[in-house]
């Protein structure tokens, strides 16, 4: 019979271990979240991240080894983004009717997301590199990383800031919007998707399909709008 050490060496080399752990940890986090009345701070993405980072640190496992296994879960982001067309089409009627208000809200919201980073960074004394990496924080990771590279930020830092922004949105946006008295699910969804991209959208889908549909739409549109706006702002402001 093999001792535990040998079994660990075998498991550590295979993608199966971290793949299963990612799914299992997320399942547990979701159970906990549901048991505790979906308390926002127990957001399953946040809990799973904390649990997995702790596990990796304790076992001295590098992130690359972890990602070899977890990439199979990561990969599903692509086809699932394509699948966002389904809820979007379900609300096609509303979308067609309100295209102009949606377009104006997009331009105002997108500029707010970018310019407020610049303004707040002046107040907090954020370093230039962090500022450049944070400007595209409200949009989906692949576009944000591309923009950061173009303007001289650190693409890998951008990826982290994008994820943190998404978590802030997923955790706080539904309660914050309720607090200020926004009731329309389309409005809520659009604001969540615009400010906190896919992670916010994932949360919106769980609350209501219409909220999810408009979040997905705003996420896609803000990606395009931010890609044009950020390089423009950098050339004017910095």
């Amino acid at each position, binding site marked *: 019979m093999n001792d535990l050490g040998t079994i660990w060496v075998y498991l550590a080399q295979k993608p199966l271990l971290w793949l299963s752990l990612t799914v299992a940890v997320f399942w547990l986090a979701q159970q906990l979240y549901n048991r505790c009345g979906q308390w926002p701070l127990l957001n399953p993405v946040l809990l799973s*991240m904390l649990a997995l980072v702790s596990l990796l640190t304790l076992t001295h496992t590098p992130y690359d080894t972890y990602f070899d296994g977890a990439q199979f879960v990561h990969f599903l982001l692509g086809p699932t983004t394509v699948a966002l067309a*389904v809820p979007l089409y379900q609300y096609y009627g509303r979308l067609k009717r309100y295209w102009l208000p949606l377009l104006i809200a997009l331009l105002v919201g997108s500029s707010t997301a970018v310019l407020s980073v610049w303004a707040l960074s002046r107040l907090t*004394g954020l370093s230039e590199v962090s500022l450049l990496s944070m400007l595209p924080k409200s949009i989906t990771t692949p576009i944000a990383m591309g923009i950061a590279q173009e303007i001289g930020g650190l693409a890998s830092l951008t990826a982290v800031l994008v994820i943190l922004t998404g978590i802030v949105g997923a955790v706080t946006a539904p309660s914050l919007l309720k607090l200020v008295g926004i009731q329309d699910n389309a409005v809520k969804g659009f604001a969540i998707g615009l400010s906190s991209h896919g992670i916010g959208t994932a949360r919106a889908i769980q609350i209501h399909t219409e909220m999810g549909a408009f979040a997905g739409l705003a996420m896609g549109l803000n990606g395009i709008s931010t890609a044009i706006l950020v390089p423009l702002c950098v050339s004017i402001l910095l």
Partner: protein
Amino acid sequence: MLSAFAILLGLQLVGEIVVRALSLPIPGPVLGMLLLFIGFIWRGNIPDYLQQTSQSLLQHLSLFFVPAGVGVMVHIGLLQQEWLAIVITLLGSTWLALLVTAWVLQALLKRWEAKE
């Protein structure tokens, strides 16, 4: 389910190819989403099999962000150096973008509906 998966992956692939060929500033899957959306408009409805598979994938969208999120561990040092400025800027900007978008859209929709 299999045919739905083939369509979703196929459109992602088409999206990736077009984005690269034309160097568009959007990710392949987002273009794939737009293509599928146009497909639904053209067809006039959503086929059942696509509806089912899409819904079960979308139900688990949060899970798919976990592997990238764990990447935070690589940057813990960088984040520690400037954590306060980062926290204030990130929270402030995310909340501002959220609220401004919601207020503007709500106000515009009210006017729009009143006009109709």
